[in-house]
């Protein structure tokens, strides 16, 4: 299979970015929107073609999906250790290409309506293209170092887009927070990469992931503090992934990142960038599975399960609809991590991995839809808060229907997309670890509850005092909603297990009826509870909130994690560590340098008189010196 055309998929958004970035002021907004959309459209068509060709025509040889790559050596350290640049094509990267291009294309189209009339319209599209380029580069990376480069690039573009409204103080703070927290996690990732490079002598995914390769077979040869070196490396890499995917306790940046424009939240903080952490674990899955007999995967599973539960609980109490969606994203990412964590490798036991990727795929569709729907609502009522919304179903029928579809999909109601993928994750968890299974089921119920809480809150209930009558968004915004709604209904029927499995062979998955029934029943109970609480305006919500008292207060303040981190950072770290260092730096390090400078100035001021500018003074000094040296040579030379 000739894969060289796939390089065009990331290059086209890069070209669009450069074009829009360089001619920022010269391009009319009406043109730049079309340029951005058109570039993405070409990329998307190529992605779909690549996916079709890979999955159905040429990718499978002897029942195994091939891993194809094309690369050039970029930096050569030793014969085996070199950093390549190139593209790697295997089931998950092709799947990610489809996800990224679909969501990105929809978001581009949507942004033409949403950002209409904005001052930085062209800049916005340039940043979106930069992000899309980085994300494509990330999923196609052939080695750890290349993925790290693009990993940071998506971080930068996320920073730029969160801080897009750069005149708003909160947006700037959120952008910095997102960048610093993920950067902090990436430090772990970098150390992990270096450890892997040092002990295995390669960064290349194909070599590292080969189950018969030396990297996996010799994992136990070096140990450090009770665990093998590679186990540590994988834990550190997982920390990097957890930072990007907003896993507990590095989740604090994601809710704040909602300060960015809503299409950005849909693209970056729901569908693509935040799944990079999941993708990273999936990319190194053979290593995670074989090294130390899956020890790290257990950590992954528990962190994922805890994050899913934690975020779902917080999501119930939030009043900003975008924050609810942000915590919902974190919860679903926890689901994906959990799925990876409980997965096996061979044949049918790889169902967790498959389900995780499946959930990534379906989640991208319906969560992007939820965010875009929320954006449409925010566009109409000019507020993020639930208290300013109500009764919107009369004014915004399309948004209402599509949001309902997405909410049903995420709640796991059959036969929508979320049902299938969530069910597979729960099957994997059930077979592997009962505790995680129960958490998963409970979270499924919570998900349905909080999702319908905001659904009823937005579209049902009484009208609020609107400044002007809310009206349905323009076609450029409703069209992506309709497309994504269609996808949210249908993508669940893709026989994912035939395409994406850890051993790349594919298997036929069967619906586990009892488990599926339990999961959907729990989802329906969640929806029913939300119906009772929030369908009509009543006091039930407040009564229950009071009944929980302290717990409610804690939850609505996100368990005070921001405050705890603030306390640790400001009161302990800044005050006890940074401040003395700063003082030392200012007093002694700077002091020394300033002292040297001042001494030089003072001395030169003193000896300045020597340079009179009179030639004869110099000549006198010269001749006098010559005479003295002459005398020394004559009389003291022995």
């Amino acid at each position, binding site marked *: 299979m000739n894969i060289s055309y796939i390089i065009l998929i990331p290059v086209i958004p890069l070209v669009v970015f450069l074009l829009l970035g360089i001619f920022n002021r010269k391009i009319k907004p009406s043109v730049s929107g079309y340029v951005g959309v058109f570039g993405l459209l070409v990329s998307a068509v190529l992605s779909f073609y690549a996916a079709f060709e890979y999955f159905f025509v040429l990718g499978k040889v002897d029942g195994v999906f091939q891993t194809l790559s094309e690369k050039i050596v970029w930096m050569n350290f030793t014969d085996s250790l070199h950093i390549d640049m190139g593209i790697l094509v295997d089931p998950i990267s092709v799947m990610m290409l489809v996800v990224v291009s679909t969501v990105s294309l929809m978001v581009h189209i949507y942004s033409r309506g949403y950002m209409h009339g904005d001052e930085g319209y062209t800049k916005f599209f340039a940043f979106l293209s930069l992000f899309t380029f980085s994300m494509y580069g990330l999923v196609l990376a052939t080695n750890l170092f290349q993925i790290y480069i693009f990993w940071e690039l998506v971080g930068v573009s996320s920073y730029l887009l969160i801080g897009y409204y750069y005149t708003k103080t909160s947006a700037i703070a959120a952008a910095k927070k997102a960048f610093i927290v993920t950067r902090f996690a990436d430090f772990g990732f970098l150390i992990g990469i270096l450890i892997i490079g040092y002990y295995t002598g390669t960064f290349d995914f194909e070599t590292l992931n080969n189950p018969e390769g030396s990297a996996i077979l010799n994992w136990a040869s070096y140990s450090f503090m009770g665990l093998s070196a590679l186990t540590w490396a994988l834990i550190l890499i997982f920390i990097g992934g957890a930072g990007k995917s907003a896993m507990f306790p590095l989740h604090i940046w994601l809710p704040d990142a909602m300060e960015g424009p809503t299409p950005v939240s849909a693209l970056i903080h729901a569908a693509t960038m935040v799944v990079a952490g999941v993708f990273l674990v999936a990319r190194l899955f053979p290593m995670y599975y074989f090294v130390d007999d899956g020890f790290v995967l257990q950590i992954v599973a528990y962190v994922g399960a805890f994050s899913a539960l934690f975020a779902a609980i917080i999501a119930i109490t939030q009043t900003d609809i975008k924050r609810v969606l942000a915590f919902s994203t974190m919860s679903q990412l926890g689901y994906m991590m959990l799925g990876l964590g409980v997965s096996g490798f061979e044949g049918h036991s790889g169902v967790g991995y498959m389900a995780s990727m499946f959930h990534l795929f379906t989640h991208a569709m319906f969560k992007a839809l939820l965010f875009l729907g929320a954006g449409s609502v925010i566009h109409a009522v000019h507020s993020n808060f639930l208290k300013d919304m109500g009764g919107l179903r009369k004014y915004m029928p399309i948004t209402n229907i599509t949001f309902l579809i997405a909410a049903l999909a995420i709640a796991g109601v059959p036969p929508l997309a979320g049902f299938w993928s969530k069910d597979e994750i729960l099957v994997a968890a059930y077979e592997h670890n009962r505790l995680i299974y129960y958490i998963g089921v409970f979270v499924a119920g919570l998900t349905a509850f909080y999702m319908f809480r905001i659904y009823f809150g937005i579209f049902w209930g009484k009208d609020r005092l609107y400044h002007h009558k809310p009206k349905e968004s323009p076609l450029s915004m409703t069209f992506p909603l309709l497309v994504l709604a269609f996808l949210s209904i249908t993508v669940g029927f893709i026989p994912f297990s035939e395409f994406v499995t850890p051993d790349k062979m594919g298997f036929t998955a069967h619906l586990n009826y009892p488990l599926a029934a339990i999961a959907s029943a729990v989802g329906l109970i969640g929806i029913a509870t939300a119906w009772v609480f929030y369908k009509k305006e009543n006091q039930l919500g407040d009564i229950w909130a009071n009944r929980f008292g302290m717990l409610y207060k804690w939850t609505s303040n996100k368990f005070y994690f921001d405050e705890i981190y603030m306390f640790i950072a400001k009161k302990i770290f800044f005050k006890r560590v940074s401040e003395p260092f700063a003082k030392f730096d200012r007093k002694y390090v700077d002091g020394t340098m300033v002292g040297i400078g001042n001494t030089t100035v003072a001395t030169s001021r003193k000896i300045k008189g020597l*340079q*009179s*500018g*009179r*030639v*004869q003074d110099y*000549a*006198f000094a010269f*001749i006098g010196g010559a005479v003295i040296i002459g005398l020394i040579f004559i009389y003291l030379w022995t």
Partner: protein
Amino acid sequence: MIEGISIYDILTLTTILFFIGVYGFLTRKNLISILISVEMILNASVVNFVVINKYLYPDILQGTLFSIFIIAVAAAETALAVAIIINLYRQISSVEVKDTEVMKF
């Protein structure tokens, strides 16, 4: 070789000439005088070359040859120096050394 005059007499003469030049160079206030002093220093060395060549190595000609070089160089140098002094005079209407101090800024 000049009869009745030893090399010491001539070398004493050139030394005196040299130091007159140095003295003039250091004390004169006028640029033209300084230039003349420099010429005296050069002439002292020219005479030295010729004398040492003639008295110590009468068979070879290097010293004499060098003295011709020095005269040529001195002529070029004088031309240059006079040109500079004329230009300076145009700028500051003076050829006094103390007035050229402004150039250090």
